[in-house]
Protein backbone atom coordinates (compact mmCIF):
# COMPACT_ATOMS: atom_id res chain seq x y z
CA UNK A 1 0.00 0.00 0.00
CA UNK A 2 1.45 3.36 -1.02
CA UNK A 3 1.03 6.37 1.19
CA UNK A 4 1.95 9.93 0.29
CA UNK A 5 1.14 13.26 1.89
CA UNK A 6 2.10 16.22 3.97
CA UNK A 7 3.24 15.82 7.58
CA UNK A 8 1.65 17.31 10.68
CA UNK A 9 4.06 17.03 13.57
CA UNK A 10 3.44 16.70 17.33
CA UNK A 11 5.50 16.09 20.47
CA UNK A 12 5.52 13.50 23.27
CA UNK A 13 2.56 11.85 24.99
CA UNK A 14 -0.23 12.82 22.58
CA UNK A 15 -3.06 11.23 24.58
CA UNK A 16 -6.34 9.77 23.38
CA UNK A 17 -8.28 12.52 25.16
CA UNK A 18 -6.79 15.15 22.84
CA UNK A 19 -7.07 12.86 19.80
CA UNK A 20 -10.81 12.47 20.43
CA UNK A 21 -12.20 14.19 23.54
CA UNK A 22 -14.63 12.13 25.62
CA UNK A 23 -17.36 14.71 25.09
CA UNK A 24 -17.73 13.27 21.57
CA UNK A 25 -17.80 9.62 22.62
CA UNK A 26 -21.58 9.48 22.79
CA UNK A 27 -21.36 8.19 19.22
CA UNK A 28 -19.22 5.55 17.57
CA UNK A 29 -19.82 6.77 14.01
CA UNK A 30 -16.32 7.23 12.52
CA UNK A 31 -17.53 10.15 10.33
CA UNK A 32 -18.79 12.04 13.39
CA UNK A 33 -15.63 11.23 15.36
CA UNK A 34 -13.45 12.39 12.45
CA UNK A 35 -14.92 15.90 12.68
CA UNK A 36 -13.23 16.33 16.07
CA UNK A 37 -9.96 14.52 15.41
CA UNK A 38 -7.03 16.13 17.30
CA UNK A 39 -9.35 18.95 18.38
CA UNK A 40 -7.88 19.54 21.84
CA UNK A 41 -4.26 19.59 20.69
CA UNK A 42 -4.68 21.30 17.31
CA UNK A 43 -8.09 22.91 16.98
CA UNK A 44 -7.99 23.41 13.18
CA UNK A 45 -6.42 20.05 12.34
CA UNK A 46 -9.41 18.66 10.45
CA UNK A 47 -9.85 21.86 8.42
CA UNK A 48 -6.23 22.31 7.42
CA UNK A 49 -5.25 18.71 6.65
CA UNK A 50 -5.81 17.00 3.32
CA UNK A 51 -6.80 13.43 2.68
CA UNK A 52 -3.71 11.21 2.80
CA UNK A 53 -1.66 13.45 5.11
CA UNK A 54 0.47 11.87 7.82
CA UNK A 55 0.90 12.46 11.54
CA UNK A 56 4.44 12.29 12.92
CA UNK A 57 4.93 12.43 16.69
CA UNK A 58 7.58 11.70 19.27
CA UNK A 59 7.27 9.33 22.26
CA UNK A 60 4.24 7.43 23.58
CA UNK A 61 1.67 8.47 20.96
CA UNK A 62 -1.90 7.51 21.92
CA UNK A 63 -1.37 7.15 25.65
CA UNK A 64 -4.34 7.06 28.02
CA UNK A 65 -7.71 5.57 27.35
CA UNK A 66 -8.45 2.35 25.47
CA UNK A 67 -10.93 4.15 23.22
CA UNK A 68 -10.67 2.68 19.74
CA UNK A 69 -12.46 5.86 18.72
CA UNK A 70 -8.98 7.49 18.66
CA UNK A 71 -7.46 5.48 15.77
CA UNK A 72 -10.95 5.34 14.18
CA UNK A 73 -11.14 9.15 14.20
CA UNK A 74 -7.64 9.48 12.77
CA UNK A 75 -8.37 6.96 10.02
CA UNK A 76 -11.77 8.43 9.16
CA UNK A 77 -10.31 11.95 9.05
CA UNK A 78 -8.21 10.74 6.13
CA UNK A 79 -4.82 10.44 7.86
CA UNK A 80 -2.93 7.77 5.93
CA UNK A 81 -0.26 6.82 8.47
CA UNK A 82 1.10 7.70 11.92
CA UNK A 83 4.85 7.58 12.50
CA UNK A 84 6.23 7.95 16.04
CA UNK A 85 9.21 7.10 18.20
CA UNK A 86 6.88 4.87 20.21
CA UNK A 87 3.18 4.17 20.66
CA UNK A 88 1.22 3.48 23.84
CA UNK A 89 0.40 -0.22 23.78
CA UNK A 90 -3.41 -0.12 23.56
CA UNK A 91 -3.27 2.45 20.75
CA UNK A 92 -0.69 0.31 18.94
CA UNK A 93 -2.87 -2.77 19.28
CA UNK A 94 -6.03 -0.92 18.25
CA UNK A 95 -4.39 0.56 15.16
CA UNK A 96 -3.26 -2.83 13.94
CA UNK A 97 -6.68 -4.29 14.74
CA UNK A 98 -8.57 -1.67 12.72
CA UNK A 99 -6.02 -1.34 9.91
CA UNK A 100 -4.60 2.14 10.57
CA UNK A 101 -0.99 2.05 9.32
CA UNK A 102 1.47 2.95 12.09
CA UNK A 103 5.26 2.79 12.11
CA UNK A 104 7.80 3.18 14.89
CA UNK A 105 10.84 4.95 13.46
CA UNK A 106 12.87 7.41 15.58
CA UNK A 107 15.14 8.27 12.60
CA UNK A 108 12.13 9.38 10.58
CA UNK A 109 10.76 11.40 13.52
CA UNK A 110 14.11 13.14 13.91
CA UNK A 111 14.46 13.81 10.18
CA UNK A 112 10.94 14.87 9.24
CA UNK A 113 9.74 18.43 9.85
CA UNK A 114 6.17 19.71 9.83
CA UNK A 115 5.04 20.32 6.28
CA UNK A 116 7.47 17.86 4.67
CA UNK A 117 6.10 15.68 1.88
CA UNK A 118 6.55 12.05 2.85
CA UNK A 119 5.96 8.78 1.05
CA UNK A 120 5.66 5.47 2.90
CA UNK A 121 5.72 1.87 1.74
CA UNK A 122 3.98 0.19 4.67
CA UNK A 123 4.87 -3.33 3.52
CA UNK A 124 8.61 -2.69 3.52
CA UNK A 125 8.60 0.02 6.21
CA UNK A 126 10.53 2.38 3.92
CA UNK A 127 9.82 6.06 4.63
CA UNK A 128 10.90 8.62 1.99
CA UNK A 129 11.13 12.30 2.86
CA UNK A 130 10.52 13.86 -0.56
CA UNK A 131 11.15 17.38 0.72
CA UNK A 132 14.56 16.62 2.19
CA UNK A 133 15.39 13.71 -0.12
CA UNK A 134 16.11 11.39 2.81
CA UNK A 135 15.10 7.81 3.51
CA UNK A 136 14.41 6.07 6.81
CA UNK A 137 13.74 2.40 7.49
CA UNK A 138 11.15 1.40 10.12
CA UNK A 139 11.55 -1.96 11.85
CA UNK A 140 9.48 -4.79 10.42
CA UNK A 141 6.40 -6.00 12.33
CA UNK A 142 6.60 -9.40 14.04
CA UNK A 143 5.29 -12.12 11.73
CA UNK A 144 1.96 -12.59 13.50
CA UNK A 145 1.19 -8.87 13.44
CA UNK A 146 2.05 -8.74 9.75
CA UNK A 147 -0.48 -11.56 9.27
CA UNK A 148 -3.11 -9.46 11.03
CA UNK A 149 -2.24 -6.46 8.90
CA UNK A 150 -2.34 -8.54 5.71
CA UNK A 151 -5.73 -9.94 6.69
CA UNK A 152 -7.03 -6.37 6.95
CA UNK A 153 -7.31 -6.34 10.73
CA UNK A 154 -8.31 -8.59 13.60
CA UNK A 155 -11.96 -9.09 12.70
CA UNK A 156 -11.12 -10.42 9.22
CA UNK A 157 -8.43 -12.62 10.73
CA UNK A 158 -10.79 -14.06 13.36
CA UNK A 159 -13.62 -14.46 10.84
CA UNK A 160 -11.40 -16.68 8.71
CA UNK A 161 -10.28 -18.61 11.77
CA UNK A 162 -13.83 -19.12 13.04
CA UNK A 163 -14.89 -20.39 9.59
CA UNK A 164 -12.08 -22.94 9.96
Amino acid at each position, binding site marked *: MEIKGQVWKYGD*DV*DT*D*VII*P*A*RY*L*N*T*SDPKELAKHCME*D*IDEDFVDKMSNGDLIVAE*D*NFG*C*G*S*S*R*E*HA*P*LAIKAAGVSCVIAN*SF*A*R*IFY*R*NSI*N*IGLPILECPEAVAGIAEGDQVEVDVDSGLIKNLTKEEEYQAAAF*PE*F*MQELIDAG*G*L*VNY*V*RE*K*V*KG
Partner: protein
Amino acid sequence: MGMTMVEKILAAHAGEDKVKPGQLVNAKLDLVLGNDVTTPVAIKEFDKIGVEEVFDQDRVAIVPDHFAPNKDINSAEQCKMIREFAHDKEITNYFEIGEMGIEHCLLPEKGLALPGDIVIGADSHTCTYGALGALATGVGSTDMAAGMATGEAWFKVPETIKFVYNGQLQEWVSGKDLILYTIGDIGVDGALYKAMEFTGEVIENFSMANRMTMSNMAIEAGGKCGLIEPDETTLEYVKDRAQRDYTVYKSDADAEYAEVIEYDVSEIEPQVAFPHLPENTRGISEVGEIKIDQSVIGSCTNGRLEDLRIAAKVLEGNKKADHVRLVIFPGTQEIYRQAMHEGLIDIFLDAGAAVSTPTCGPCLGGHMGILAKGERAIATTNRNFVGRMGHPESEVYLSNPAVAAASAIKGQIVGPKEVL
Protein backbone atom coordinates in the same frame (compact mmCIF):
# COMPACT_ATOMS: atom_id res chain seq x y z
CA MET B 1 15.61 -19.48 35.24
CA GLY B 2 12.20 -19.06 36.89
CA MET B 3 9.18 -17.14 35.69
CA THR B 4 7.39 -14.00 36.85
CA MET B 5 3.68 -14.08 37.78
CA VAL B 6 2.71 -12.67 34.41
CA GLU B 7 4.77 -15.26 32.55
CA LYS B 8 3.20 -18.06 34.58
CA ILE B 9 -0.34 -16.82 34.00
CA LEU B 10 0.24 -16.45 30.25
CA ALA B 11 1.92 -19.87 30.01
CA ALA B 12 -0.97 -21.56 31.82
CA HIS B 13 -3.59 -19.90 29.62
CA ALA B 14 -1.65 -20.60 26.41
CA GLY B 15 -1.11 -24.26 27.25
CA GLU B 16 2.66 -23.84 27.44
CA ASP B 17 5.08 -24.97 30.15
CA LYS B 18 7.16 -21.87 29.80
CA VAL B 19 6.97 -18.54 28.00
CA LYS B 20 9.57 -15.80 27.58
CA PRO B 21 9.29 -12.02 27.22
CA GLY B 22 8.82 -11.02 23.59
CA GLN B 23 7.07 -14.28 22.66
CA LEU B 24 3.61 -13.93 21.07
CA VAL B 25 1.01 -16.30 22.52
CA ASN B 26 -2.66 -16.99 22.03
CA ALA B 27 -4.25 -17.26 25.46
CA LYS B 28 -7.63 -18.30 26.85
CA LEU B 29 -9.60 -15.55 28.57
CA ASP B 30 -11.39 -15.79 31.91
CA LEU B 31 -13.38 -12.60 31.46
CA VAL B 32 -14.09 -10.06 28.71
CA LEU B 33 -15.34 -6.63 29.79
CA GLY B 34 -16.84 -3.60 28.10
CA ASN B 35 -18.67 -0.39 29.00
CA ASP B 36 -21.25 1.85 27.31
CA VAL B 37 -18.62 3.78 25.32
CA THR B 38 -16.53 0.87 24.06
CA THR B 39 -19.11 -1.92 23.75
CA PRO B 40 -21.13 -0.33 20.91
CA VAL B 41 -18.01 -0.39 18.70
CA ALA B 42 -17.34 -3.96 19.83
CA ILE B 43 -20.88 -5.06 18.94
CA LYS B 44 -20.49 -3.74 15.38
CA GLU B 45 -17.25 -5.70 15.03
CA PHE B 46 -18.68 -8.80 16.74
CA ASP B 47 -21.49 -8.87 14.18
CA LYS B 48 -18.92 -8.95 11.35
CA ILE B 49 -17.17 -12.03 12.75
CA GLY B 50 -20.06 -14.33 11.96
CA VAL B 51 -20.70 -16.17 15.22
CA GLU B 52 -24.14 -16.19 16.82
CA GLU B 53 -23.22 -16.48 20.48
CA VAL B 54 -20.56 -15.18 22.83
CA PHE B 55 -18.01 -17.81 23.87
CA ASP B 56 -19.40 -18.06 27.40
CA GLN B 57 -22.38 -16.08 28.69
CA ASP B 58 -20.96 -16.05 32.23
CA ARG B 59 -17.60 -14.68 31.17
CA VAL B 60 -18.61 -11.49 29.47
CA ALA B 61 -19.33 -8.45 31.62
CA ILE B 62 -21.01 -5.31 30.29
CA VAL B 63 -21.30 -2.27 32.54
CA PRO B 64 -22.98 0.97 31.45
CA ASP B 65 -21.02 3.35 33.67
CA HIS B 66 -19.40 6.06 31.55
CA PHE B 67 -22.31 8.15 30.30
CA ALA B 68 -24.85 6.40 32.51
CA PRO B 69 -27.34 7.22 33.89
CA ASN B 70 -27.83 8.33 30.28
CA LYS B 71 -26.54 11.87 29.93
CA ASP B 72 -28.13 12.67 26.55
CA ILE B 73 -30.02 11.07 23.69
CA ASN B 74 -26.93 9.69 21.95
CA SER B 75 -25.72 8.13 25.20
CA ALA B 76 -29.18 6.66 25.74
CA GLU B 77 -28.94 5.06 22.29
CA GLN B 78 -25.54 3.59 23.11
CA CYS B 79 -26.80 2.19 26.43
CA LYS B 80 -29.88 0.81 24.68
CA MET B 81 -27.69 -0.93 22.12
CA ILE B 82 -25.56 -2.68 24.74
CA ARG B 83 -28.61 -3.55 26.87
CA GLU B 84 -30.25 -5.23 23.89
CA PHE B 85 -27.06 -7.03 22.95
CA ALA B 86 -26.68 -8.32 26.52
CA HIS B 87 -30.30 -9.49 26.45
CA ASP B 88 -30.00 -11.14 23.01
CA LYS B 89 -26.81 -12.96 23.86
CA GLU B 90 -28.10 -13.86 27.35
CA ILE B 91 -25.09 -12.30 29.01
CA THR B 92 -25.26 -12.99 32.74
CA ASN B 93 -23.13 -10.12 33.92
CA TYR B 94 -24.89 -7.09 32.53
CA PHE B 95 -25.41 -4.51 35.27
CA GLU B 96 -28.19 -1.98 34.83
CA ILE B 97 -28.09 1.35 36.66
CA GLY B 98 -29.35 0.81 40.18
CA GLU B 99 -27.23 -2.32 40.44
CA MET B 100 -24.19 -1.22 38.48
CA GLY B 101 -21.10 0.48 39.75
CA ILE B 102 -17.96 1.89 38.22
CA GLU B 103 -16.76 -1.24 36.42
CA HIS B 104 -13.40 -1.59 38.17
CA CYS B 105 -14.96 -1.19 41.59
CA LEU B 106 -17.85 -3.50 40.68
CA LEU B 107 -16.16 -6.53 39.11
CA PRO B 108 -13.84 -7.38 42.03
CA GLU B 109 -16.74 -6.76 44.44
CA LYS B 110 -18.88 -9.27 42.51
CA GLY B 111 -16.07 -11.83 42.43
CA LEU B 112 -15.88 -11.70 38.63
CA ALA B 113 -12.14 -11.01 38.49
CA LEU B 114 -10.06 -13.49 40.45
CA PRO B 115 -6.43 -14.41 41.16
CA GLY B 116 -4.64 -16.03 38.23
CA ASP B 117 -7.23 -14.86 35.69
CA ILE B 118 -6.60 -13.31 32.34
CA VAL B 119 -9.06 -10.47 31.93
CA ILE B 120 -9.27 -8.17 28.93
CA GLY B 121 -11.45 -5.11 29.17
CA ALA B 122 -12.29 -2.45 26.64
CA ASP B 123 -11.33 0.12 29.23
CA SER B 124 -7.77 1.08 30.01
CA HIS B 125 -8.20 0.80 33.77
CA THR B 126 -8.95 -2.92 33.53
CA CYS B 127 -5.42 -3.27 34.96
CA THR B 128 -7.06 -2.68 38.39
CA TYR B 129 -7.56 -6.45 38.87
CA GLY B 130 -3.79 -6.90 38.93
CA ALA B 131 -4.28 -6.18 42.63
CA LEU B 132 -5.91 -9.63 42.89
CA GLY B 133 -2.99 -11.32 41.16
CA ALA B 134 -4.71 -11.44 37.77
CA LEU B 135 -3.27 -10.49 34.40
CA ALA B 136 -5.82 -7.83 33.58
CA THR B 137 -5.25 -5.41 30.76
CA GLY B 138 -7.03 -2.78 28.73
CA VAL B 139 -7.73 -3.40 25.06
CA GLY B 140 -9.83 -1.76 22.37
CA SER B 141 -13.29 -2.63 21.15
CA THR B 142 -12.12 -4.91 18.32
CA ASP B 143 -10.14 -7.03 20.78
CA MET B 144 -13.23 -7.12 22.98
CA ALA B 145 -15.27 -8.33 19.99
CA ALA B 146 -12.78 -11.06 19.10
CA GLY B 147 -12.55 -12.01 22.78
CA MET B 148 -16.34 -12.32 23.09
CA ALA B 149 -16.45 -14.45 19.93
CA THR B 150 -13.54 -16.79 20.63
CA GLY B 151 -12.67 -16.56 24.34
CA GLU B 152 -9.09 -15.98 23.31
CA ALA B 153 -6.69 -13.11 22.64
CA TRP B 154 -3.11 -12.71 21.46
CA PHE B 155 -0.52 -11.30 23.79
CA LYS B 156 3.11 -10.39 23.61
CA VAL B 157 4.67 -11.75 26.81
CA PRO B 158 5.84 -8.58 28.58
CA GLU B 159 9.03 -8.02 30.49
CA THR B 160 8.36 -7.20 34.13
CA ILE B 161 9.62 -4.31 36.25
CA LYS B 162 9.58 -5.10 39.95
CA PHE B 163 8.83 -2.27 42.36
CA VAL B 164 9.73 -2.76 46.01
CA TYR B 165 8.22 -0.48 48.65
CA ASN B 166 9.72 -0.59 52.14
CA GLY B 167 9.74 1.72 55.16
CA GLN B 168 7.24 3.48 57.41
CA LEU B 169 4.40 5.33 55.68
CA GLN B 170 3.86 8.95 56.68
CA GLU B 171 0.43 9.93 57.96
CA TRP B 172 -2.18 10.39 55.18
CA VAL B 173 -0.01 8.62 52.61
CA SER B 174 -1.86 5.91 50.70
CA GLY B 175 -1.58 3.67 47.66
CA LYS B 176 -2.53 6.65 45.51
CA ASP B 177 0.53 8.56 46.68
CA LEU B 178 2.87 5.64 46.09
CA ILE B 179 1.63 5.10 42.54
CA LEU B 180 1.72 8.83 41.74
CA TYR B 181 5.24 9.01 43.16
CA THR B 182 6.24 5.99 41.07
CA ILE B 183 4.79 7.50 37.88
CA GLY B 184 6.54 10.76 38.72
CA ASP B 185 9.77 8.79 38.99
CA ILE B 186 9.59 6.61 35.87
CA GLY B 187 7.34 8.80 33.67
CA VAL B 188 4.12 8.16 31.77
CA ASP B 189 5.91 5.75 29.45
CA GLY B 190 8.30 4.37 32.07
CA ALA B 191 6.68 0.93 31.94
CA LEU B 192 5.63 1.01 28.27
CA TYR B 193 4.79 -2.50 26.97
CA LYS B 194 5.87 -3.92 30.35
CA ALA B 195 4.23 -5.56 33.34
CA MET B 196 4.64 -3.86 36.71
CA GLU B 197 4.86 -5.94 39.86
CA PHE B 198 4.29 -4.17 43.17
CA THR B 199 6.03 -5.81 46.15
CA GLY B 200 7.57 -5.11 49.54
CA GLU B 201 6.42 -4.88 53.13
CA VAL B 202 4.30 -1.78 52.47
CA ILE B 203 2.27 -3.59 49.80
CA GLU B 204 1.96 -6.67 52.02
CA ASN B 205 0.41 -4.49 54.72
CA PHE B 206 -1.87 -2.66 52.29
CA SER B 207 -5.63 -3.18 52.17
CA MET B 208 -7.24 -4.39 48.93
CA ALA B 209 -8.49 -0.83 48.31
CA ASN B 210 -4.96 0.59 48.39
CA ARG B 211 -3.70 -2.25 46.22
CA MET B 212 -6.43 -1.71 43.64
CA THR B 213 -5.63 2.00 43.52
CA MET B 214 -2.02 1.18 42.69
CA SER B 215 -2.76 -1.45 40.05
CA ASN B 216 -5.43 0.84 38.58
CA MET B 217 -2.83 3.41 37.58
CA ALA B 218 -0.28 1.03 36.03
CA ILE B 219 -1.61 2.21 32.66
CA GLU B 220 -0.62 5.77 33.60
CA ALA B 221 3.00 4.60 33.45
CA GLY B 222 2.30 2.91 30.11
CA GLY B 223 2.19 -0.52 31.78
CA LYS B 224 0.36 -3.49 30.30
CA CYS B 225 -0.66 -4.57 33.79
CA GLY B 226 0.26 -4.01 37.44
CA LEU B 227 0.28 -7.15 39.55
CA ILE B 228 0.41 -7.86 43.26
CA GLU B 229 1.09 -11.35 44.54
CA PRO B 230 -2.01 -12.83 46.19
CA ASP B 231 -1.68 -13.30 49.96
CA GLU B 232 -4.00 -13.71 52.95
CA THR B 233 -5.50 -10.26 52.38
CA THR B 234 -6.34 -11.20 48.77
CA LEU B 235 -7.77 -14.59 49.68
CA GLU B 236 -9.85 -13.09 52.46
CA TYR B 237 -11.25 -10.60 49.92
CA VAL B 238 -12.17 -13.22 47.30
CA LYS B 239 -13.26 -15.96 49.73
CA ASP B 240 -16.98 -15.16 49.82
CA ARG B 241 -17.07 -13.55 46.39
CA ALA B 242 -15.60 -16.14 44.05
CA GLN B 243 -18.12 -18.38 42.32
CA ARG B 244 -15.53 -20.38 40.39
CA ASP B 245 -12.08 -21.86 40.95
CA TYR B 246 -9.01 -19.70 40.74
CA THR B 247 -5.25 -20.20 40.89
CA VAL B 248 -2.65 -18.30 42.86
CA TYR B 249 0.54 -17.63 40.89
CA LYS B 250 3.65 -16.21 42.50
CA SER B 251 6.85 -15.06 40.86
CA ASP B 252 9.79 -17.42 41.28
CA ALA B 253 12.70 -16.23 43.39
CA ASP B 254 14.97 -16.56 40.35
CA ALA B 255 12.54 -14.91 37.90
CA GLU B 256 14.17 -12.45 35.56
CA TYR B 257 13.12 -8.80 35.75
CA ALA B 258 13.81 -6.00 33.28
CA GLU B 259 14.53 -3.83 36.29
CA VAL B 260 14.07 -3.75 40.06
CA ILE B 261 13.24 -0.34 41.55
CA GLU B 262 13.21 0.16 45.33
CA TYR B 263 11.58 2.98 47.25
CA ASP B 264 11.90 4.01 50.88
CA VAL B 265 8.33 5.20 51.48
CA SER B 266 9.21 7.08 54.66
CA GLU B 267 10.42 9.89 52.40
CA ILE B 268 7.17 10.10 50.44
CA GLU B 269 4.57 12.70 51.43
CA PRO B 270 1.05 12.99 49.93
CA GLN B 271 1.49 13.59 46.20
CA VAL B 272 -0.23 15.95 43.78
CA ALA B 273 0.08 15.48 40.00
CA PHE B 274 -0.01 18.83 38.21
CA PRO B 275 -1.54 19.36 34.76
CA HIS B 276 -1.33 17.91 32.20
CA LEU B 277 0.33 14.55 32.89
CA PRO B 278 0.18 12.15 35.84
CA GLU B 279 4.00 12.23 35.94
CA ASN B 280 4.06 15.91 36.98
CA THR B 281 4.05 15.03 40.66
CA ARG B 282 5.06 17.11 43.65
CA GLY B 283 4.92 16.51 47.39
CA ILE B 284 2.06 18.40 49.07
CA SER B 285 4.57 20.70 50.79
CA GLU B 286 5.80 21.88 47.38
CA VAL B 287 2.42 22.63 45.83
CA GLY B 288 2.26 26.38 46.52
CA GLU B 289 -0.97 28.37 46.34
CA ILE B 290 -3.37 26.69 43.90
CA LYS B 291 -6.97 27.84 44.23
CA ILE B 292 -9.60 25.31 43.13
CA ASP B 293 -13.17 25.48 41.84
CA GLN B 294 -14.07 21.82 42.25
CA SER B 295 -13.06 18.76 44.24
CA VAL B 296 -13.96 15.31 42.93
CA ILE B 297 -13.76 12.29 45.22
CA GLY B 298 -14.46 8.86 43.73
CA SER B 299 -13.76 6.99 40.46
CA CYS B 300 -12.31 3.55 39.71
CA THR B 301 -9.09 4.79 41.30
CA ASN B 302 -10.43 6.04 44.65
CA GLY B 303 -14.16 5.30 44.90
CA ARG B 304 -13.98 2.46 47.41
CA LEU B 305 -15.37 2.46 50.93
CA GLU B 306 -11.97 3.00 52.50
CA ASP B 307 -11.46 6.08 50.30
CA LEU B 308 -14.82 7.48 51.39
CA ARG B 309 -13.98 6.81 55.04
CA ILE B 310 -10.77 8.81 54.68
CA ALA B 311 -12.60 11.67 52.97
CA ALA B 312 -15.22 11.62 55.75
CA LYS B 313 -12.55 11.71 58.43
CA VAL B 314 -11.24 14.95 56.95
CA LEU B 315 -14.66 16.45 56.12
CA GLU B 316 -16.42 15.60 59.41
CA GLY B 317 -17.55 18.78 61.15
CA ASN B 318 -16.18 20.92 58.30
CA LYS B 319 -17.76 22.70 55.37
CA LYS B 320 -16.43 23.07 51.89
CA ALA B 321 -15.24 26.55 50.94
CA ASP B 322 -18.04 28.70 49.50
CA HIS B 323 -16.52 28.91 46.02
CA VAL B 324 -15.83 25.16 45.73
CA ARG B 325 -18.12 22.50 44.28
CA LEU B 326 -17.53 19.20 46.04
CA VAL B 327 -18.77 16.09 44.22
CA ILE B 328 -18.47 12.61 45.68
CA PHE B 329 -19.02 9.38 43.73
CA PRO B 330 -19.19 6.08 45.58
CA GLY B 331 -17.84 3.32 43.32
CA THR B 332 -20.76 0.89 43.60
CA GLN B 333 -24.25 0.64 45.03
CA GLU B 334 -22.88 -1.58 47.80
CA ILE B 335 -20.23 1.00 48.70
CA TYR B 336 -22.92 3.71 48.60
CA ARG B 337 -25.17 1.72 50.94
CA GLN B 338 -22.36 0.94 53.37
CA ALA B 339 -21.27 4.59 53.35
CA MET B 340 -24.85 5.49 54.24
CA HIS B 341 -24.99 2.97 57.10
CA GLU B 342 -21.72 4.26 58.49
CA GLY B 343 -22.98 7.85 58.42
CA LEU B 344 -20.44 8.93 55.81
CA ILE B 345 -23.11 10.29 53.47
CA ASP B 346 -24.44 12.52 56.27
CA ILE B 347 -20.94 13.87 56.81
CA PHE B 348 -20.65 14.58 53.09
CA LEU B 349 -24.03 16.30 52.90
CA ASP B 350 -23.25 18.35 56.00
CA ALA B 351 -19.99 19.42 54.36
CA GLY B 352 -21.94 20.67 51.36
CA ALA B 353 -21.08 17.87 48.94
CA ALA B 354 -23.16 16.62 46.04
CA VAL B 355 -23.23 12.83 46.35
CA SER B 356 -23.91 10.93 43.14
CA THR B 357 -24.96 7.49 42.04
CA PRO B 358 -21.91 5.58 40.72
CA THR B 359 -20.69 6.81 37.33
CA CYS B 360 -17.41 7.55 35.56
CA GLY B 361 -19.01 10.87 34.51
CA PRO B 362 -16.72 13.63 35.76
CA CYS B 363 -13.43 11.72 35.56
CA LEU B 364 -13.42 11.73 31.77
CA GLY B 365 -15.32 14.97 31.29
CA GLY B 366 -18.48 13.09 30.40
CA HIS B 367 -21.08 14.61 32.71
CA MET B 368 -21.85 15.35 36.38
CA GLY B 369 -19.07 17.85 37.06
CA ILE B 370 -17.63 19.31 33.84
CA LEU B 371 -15.16 22.19 34.19
CA ALA B 372 -15.60 25.55 32.44
CA LYS B 373 -12.78 27.43 30.72
CA GLY B 374 -10.08 28.38 33.19
CA GLU B 375 -11.50 26.30 36.06
CA ARG B 376 -9.39 24.04 38.24
CA ALA B 377 -10.22 20.81 40.00
CA ILE B 378 -8.49 18.59 42.49
CA ALA B 379 -9.56 15.01 41.84
CA THR B 380 -8.91 11.54 43.18
CA THR B 381 -9.20 10.28 39.59
CA ASN B 382 -6.39 9.01 37.37
CA ARG B 383 -5.78 11.42 34.48
CA ASN B 384 -5.13 15.13 34.20
CA PHE B 385 -4.67 15.42 30.43
CA VAL B 386 -5.66 18.57 28.52
CA GLY B 387 -9.47 18.82 28.59
CA ARG B 388 -9.85 15.62 30.58
CA MET B 389 -12.57 17.00 32.85
CA GLY B 390 -14.06 19.58 30.52
CA HIS B 391 -12.86 22.67 28.68
CA PRO B 392 -9.41 22.31 27.05
CA GLU B 393 -8.31 25.30 29.12
CA SER B 394 -9.39 23.79 32.45
CA GLU B 395 -6.97 22.04 34.79
CA VAL B 396 -7.03 18.83 36.83
CA TYR B 397 -4.74 18.08 39.76
CA LEU B 398 -4.63 14.47 40.98
CA SER B 399 -4.38 13.48 44.63
CA ASN B 400 -5.54 11.04 47.30
CA PRO B 401 -8.98 11.44 48.96
CA ALA B 402 -7.61 13.12 52.10
CA VAL B 403 -5.96 15.88 50.08
CA ALA B 404 -9.04 16.32 47.85
CA ALA B 405 -11.25 16.62 50.95
CA ALA B 406 -8.91 19.04 52.71
CA SER B 407 -8.61 21.13 49.55
CA ALA B 408 -12.39 21.36 49.27
CA ILE B 409 -12.53 22.81 52.79
CA LYS B 410 -9.67 25.25 52.29
CA GLY B 411 -10.57 26.22 48.71
CA GLN B 412 -7.03 25.61 47.59
CA ILE B 413 -4.81 22.55 47.36
CA VAL B 414 -3.65 21.61 50.86
CA GLY B 415 -2.93 18.48 52.86
CA PRO B 416 -5.28 17.28 55.63
CA LYS B 417 -2.95 18.59 58.33
CA GLU B 418 -3.90 22.13 57.25
CA VAL B 419 -7.55 21.66 58.15
CA LEU B 420 -7.52 19.27 61.11
